């Protein structure tokens, strides 16, 4: 069995909601509520869900931008909370991120050579010359001419900027990259280029990705396994092929049926999930999806279904699969 590179164990992150004159905490937004998952070496785990389901909070916990309230995040079996400062620095260079909007992810006042080299300067304290060489190397890896290192971000198109962000993530020899909607802000004709780039880089460098997206088709093309999140919980986790071929959880079914067709004659069973995502401040009792679920039974309101393995490598949190 391949070794788990990243492991998230029973992690919880609640955000307090302050109300009233004295800003007393009146409730908690359960952004991530008891989530466990692993990312293996050289694997892409797709994390799919709609806005507000907690996927970005989960990414922030992994990137150490938020601290978990409970549970632990492990990197190669070691709890991040227990790392020394030096080890922490190593972790930060091993796990990098590429965000949705390359316009705001790149500092407009820095030359792109400086942007790409910054993780090296901060985490590795390399001499200038070595940084320049490494920057040229990664720029070539992402398909940018190293001569562009002197230019500023505004001189590049959206697709090229996403390549710059990828180069920065690669610069410090990272092992894993969190991709947060990496293609969402790009034009259709460019999107394919970027998806292919990440695929190529993974093959060449043996990277692991945590791919966060609401776009099921993008996730289909990059992910080996997919986790579906709803209101802070993982509701289904499976290898990509079986998940797309036969989704089990009603929410996964609904998501797939709501995805847009690629041909007008492509019809699929429409599962009409009415209403909207309930407030994470006050999630429904029992199963959180029950208020929109067309298959809900009495038991769903009473008992929260645990995430259970129903077939090898296939986990679902639903009472329909006992």
């Amino acid at each position, binding site marked *: 069995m391949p070794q788990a590179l990243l492991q998230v164990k029973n992690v919880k992150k609640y955000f307090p909601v302050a109300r009233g004159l004295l800003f007393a905490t009146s409730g908690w937004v359960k952004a991530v509520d008891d989530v466990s998952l692993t990312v293996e070496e050289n694997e892409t785990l797709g994390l799919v869900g709609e806005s507000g389901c907690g996927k970005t909070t989960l990414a922030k916990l992994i990137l150490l931008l938020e601290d978990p309230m409970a549970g632990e995040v492990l990197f190669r079996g070691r709890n991040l909370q227990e790392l020394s400062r030096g080890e922490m620095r190593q972790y930060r260079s091993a796990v990098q991120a590429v965000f949705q909007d390359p316009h705001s992810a790149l500092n407009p006042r820095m030359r792109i050579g400086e942007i790409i080299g910054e993780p090296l300067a901060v985490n590795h304290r390399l001499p200038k010359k070595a940084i320049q060489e490494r920057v040229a190397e990664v720029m070539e890896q992402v398909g940018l001419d190293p001569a562009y290192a002197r230019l500023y971000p505004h001189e590049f198109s959206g697709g090229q900027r996403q390549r710059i962000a990828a180069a920065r993530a690669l610069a410090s020899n990272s092992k894993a990259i969190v991709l947060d909607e990496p293609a969402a802000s790009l*034009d*259709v*004709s460019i999107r*394919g280029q970027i*998806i*292919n780039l990440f*695929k190529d880089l993974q093959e060449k460098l043996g990277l692991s990705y945590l791919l966060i997206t609401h776009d099921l088709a993008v996730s289909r093309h990059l992910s080996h396994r997919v986790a579906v999140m709803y209101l802070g919980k993982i509701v289904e986790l499976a290898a990509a092929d079986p998940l797309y071929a036969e989704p089990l959880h009603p929410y996964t079914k609904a998501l797939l049926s709501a995805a847009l*067709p690629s*041909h007008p004659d492509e019809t699929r069973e429409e599962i009409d999930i009415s209403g909207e995502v309930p407030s994470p401040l006050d999630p429904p009792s029992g199963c959180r999806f029950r208020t929109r679920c067309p298959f809900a039974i009495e038991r769903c309101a009473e008992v929260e279904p645990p995430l259970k393995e129903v077939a090898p490598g296939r986990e679902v949190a639903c009472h329909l699969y006992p």
Partner: protein
Amino acid sequence: MESGTGTRAERGTPNVAGAGERTGPAPLLQVENLKTHFFTRWGVVKAVDGVSFSLREGETLGLVGESGSGKSVTCLSILRLVPKPAGRIVGGQILFEGRDLLSLGEREMRKYRGRQISMILQDPLTTLNPVFTIGAQVREPLRIHRLVERDSVKQRVLELLRLVRIPAAESRLENYPHQFSGGMRQRVVGAAAIACQPKLLIADEPTTSLDVTIQAQYLRLLKEIQRRSKLALLFVTHDLGIVAKICDRVAVMYAGRIVEEAAVRELFSAPAHPYSQGLLHSLPKLHQRIARLPSIEGTPPLLSNLPPGCPFAPRCPKVMSICREQYPPKTPLTTSHQVVCWAYAKESHATSLAPS
């Protein structure tokens, strides 16, 4: 009085019938060779440069293109809301029910906006005014166009909010936009857009900011409203999936011009223009995983500095020498399918030149 309105109607009919002789029922909207340019310090940006299309009652036309292809400026031109002073409509005609909107004065034009032609924009949060209640904002077009009696306005607003499925509409009239979710906000925008029962609804990427399941709901709702009131829908999107789902016809835009127009099935089954082909192939498919996603090399051109000839030539896998020199002519492939590309123009162009 009655005889007066009668003669006006009679005077009106021959016109419509005359147009109908050529192309069946007259189109509701006919855009002819529209040119909207922006005059900037850095030169003239030809955002829309010779766009023609038509739209019938009850029909949905998808206007597809990437950012900067001119699809939004086309929509703004129809409503004559192009940002001034940089932007100007420098040529063409926009015929709405046979009347050229470009020849109207500003006062006349105002009678069309929101009344005959309505628009839904991408981001409901910027469309809605944060300091007015949603009741007030749905009421506004009714008040401006004075369509409903004062005391029945509230009734009509409630009716509209129920039509777009705002739950417990009565209790939400006095709510503000921030108290609504993204999907609900966009439905409120929809309610305001159809308040005056317009004949044409322009929707500019209305679902881009919505989640997948909410997007599916919204598209279903739009279709239902359209069926009910025979609304013509001009749907602007960059997403071919939406086109496949809800459009009857589709026009593909590139660098300010329409490069292919077809019935939806024709475009998806037999795309002719290399750009359309590239777009369709680069659409990630949900039910098959392929090793490499095809994509179009290069990036869209800058509209202020277009190459001579076909603007797609630098990215085109089938480029020929003539493509770099001359803009290709429009070639009909079937009665409902036209393409602007030299690869199809050769024979028919030669024959069309010969008789004249």
